[in-house]
């Protein structure tokens, strides 16, 4: 009998990996008190940029205090669909993008002017729903960051309202302020600072759905149920600049089609939440762990 114990344990473990994942499993609903429609001004001037703290500077701009929420994105889609700025193609919402200069560099792919996918609607992770000719946020996800949105979809949202995506420098300055801190709130990271992989927040269930997004502005020092958060705003008062979702940035670099993301996410370890860490993907990439916010001049 003994000889079967180990294989049986291993088999049990492997069988648990075959269990279905309930993407709509119940989740706590909290109002964080942080207004996703609010903006903060970032003054012009120098700041420490990147891991090696090079001194760079930006002009003045304003940036959203939180990531764009699912509700905000649904509102955008309703308006944009009504005036023809976006349209359905199969199960996707697509919109026009004017294209990039293409030089045919090694690994570079051409981004032509034309319609590109903003969001897929048929993906079970999509939290924007379309019923009765209206877009709306899935119940419980209204104040969560908009995810499953491509770079084009993020660009399209900002552009529609006359905003734009932040450059990497603008993003980092807004997150870091003018000192050399590695995280928006300071030097060290604890589980109560941000939503990252296995951070034991009230939204994650590591035995099934894994890490899930938290409402924007969740880590604001308030207590939600039995869960006490730490106020983790950036020096300029921005929330979720580390963790929760990666955020698309606006730079289009020469000789590459990749778009860059910042901030780490619910699916990454703490090391990726450091302010200078970059991630990138093709602009059509969508993920339950990628969102965005906008800036305006």
């Amino acid at each position, binding site marked *: 009998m003994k000889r079967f114990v180990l294989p049986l344990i*291993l088999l049990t*473990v*492997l069988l*648990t*990996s*075959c*269990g279905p*994942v309930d*993407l709509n499993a119940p989740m706590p609903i909290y109002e964080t008190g942080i207004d996703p429609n609010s903006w903060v001004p970032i003054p012009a001037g120098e700041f420490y940029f990147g*891991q*090696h*703290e090079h001194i760079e500077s930006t002009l003045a701009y304003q940036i959203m205090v939180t990531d764009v929420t699912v509700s905000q994105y649904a509102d955008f889609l309703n308006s944009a669909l009504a005036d023809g700025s976006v349209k359905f193609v199969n199960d996707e919402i697509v919109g026009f993008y004017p294209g990039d200069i293409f030089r045919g*560099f*090694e*690994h*570079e*792919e051409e981004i032509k002017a034309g319609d590109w996918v903003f969001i897929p609607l048929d*993906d*079970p*992770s999509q939290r924007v729903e379309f019923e009765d000719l209206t877009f709306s946020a899935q119940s419980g996800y209204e104040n969560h960051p908009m995810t499953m949105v491509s770079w084009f979809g993020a660009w399209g949202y900002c552009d529609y309202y006359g905003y734009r995506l932040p450059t990497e420098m603008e993003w980092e300055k807004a997150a870091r302020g003018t000192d*050399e801190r*590695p*995280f928006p709130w300071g*030097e060290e990271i604890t589980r109560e600072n941000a939503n990252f*992989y*296995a951070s034991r927040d009230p939204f994650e269930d*590591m*035995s*099934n*759905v*894994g890490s899930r997004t938290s409402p924007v502005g969740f880590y604001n020092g308030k207590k939600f149920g039995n869960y006490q958060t730490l106020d983790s705003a950036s020096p300029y008062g921005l929330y979720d600049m580390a963790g929760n979702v*990666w955020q698309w940035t606006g730079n289009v*670099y*020469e*000789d*590459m089609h*990749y778009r860059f*993301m910042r901030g780490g996410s619910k*699916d*990454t*370890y*703490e*090391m*990726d939440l*450091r302010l200078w860490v*970059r*991630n*990138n*993907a*093709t602009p059509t*990439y969508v*993920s*339950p*762990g990628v969102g965005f916010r906008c800036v305006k001049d």
Partner: protein
Amino acid sequence: MEAFSKRFNYLFGSTKGLILVAISMVAIITAVWGMLSGPMAELGVRDVVVKTLGMDMVQTEREGRIIILYHTIAMAIIAIETYMVTSLIKMKEFYKIAVRVLITVGYLMAMIFGMGFAYFGHNWAFHGLYITGLALIFFAGILLTIALSPWNPKYHNTDKEYAHTKKGIDLERMAFFATALTTVLSAMFGAVPGSFYGNGFETFLAENIIRMPHKTVLEYSVIGHLHIMLALIAIMLTLIIGRWLNFKGTWHKIAMPLMILGTIVLNLGVWGVVTPLQPAAHMVIYVGATPSMLAALFLLIWSWRKLIRDGTEHLEKPTFGQKFSALLRDPLKFGPTWQMLFMNFTTSFIGIFMAIRLDEIFRVWPAREERIELTGHWHVLSAIIATIILMYYGDMIGLKGKVRQWYGWGLIILSDVAFAAVTIFEMKRLFITEAVQQPLVNALMYTMDFGLAMLLLLLAIVLAWRLVDLFKSKGRWTEEVEHELVDEVMK
């Protein structure tokens, strides 16, 4: 005092003692620093370790710390291979002693002061001593290369069973020489950018810049360096295993020229990445890797045939089952070449698949996904190298009977289970989306952790046994003082 002196002489003066010390040092580093990441971090163990040991973990310096950590482990592995080479291959006694002294002092300095500098505050004297350690290892490499020179008639080999030229130059020795020489040269491809980036601490991990379309010469140099050094460690180990098993015959005569050719071409390809020939370098690397891998395959074929032949020689007409049983009879002799074969499924084939479908599949995914594949890829390769070394070590310390079986099969099964899980984890995006991956990730993590933890436990038991043995006045260590690996080569 005499007791201490005798043990010191064993640990730092004998081949098996030196190897034991180096394995122990790597085991300690792996056990402690393995608690700083992955599941151990999730469980909160990292915080306890950091606090207990008083580590200074500045966020901006993580990449630099990891580079030093990788180098200290690699230096100990190179030292182990050097001890094996100097014990297996004929050379002047002066060279043997000089190489061993230099590399032992070198890797211990690099390890102790490097880790001291990286993780326990920035004592710049430690940094200097770390660099000194690396420099000593470099000098040891130069001396080893000279010592392995195949042109001295004293080292010629005209035995028909072994590969040699018409003039009697031993081609196996030539392969050792080529590997040592190219290792020394390739080390400079890390030393030069290391000096540059170290002077200002603008360090980076290669996997984080892999998608940048424009890389500097020194960035290419770093990428080339880490690839070729690991490949050369693997090639040298293949040669060592071949010598231990007494690789000979027709397969040997085909394999050795291929090994020499592969090593040289592979290196030329990697060095080419820092030249204007960079666009063609990958093709040269593929061309070089092919003969090296073929040579390893020929070693595998020869050694498996020999295991089967030796295990069935008492039978007149052995059945397939009897042959199979003979092949698997001794896990420590079967294991090294099996691990080389298994490596293809976890690293080589994955690497080739990635290269072929890079833009269609892997570069569509986020860079962080690609990073998982890259780091998983070379972690597995490094760990496979470690298991092969441990198999040889198990044989050289005379494990017999059931202990040999448990140790050997434990190494094979536990490591392969873990490496298979790592490989599936790396490639999971091919068949599962982020949204529904968690149960699979959990199962793979449990499997990996189980395999690796049990493997470390197995190693810990062996090391504890060797530690206890050191306290005995007539322990096994007293016999091992005079042992040389060349005397234990299979007949």
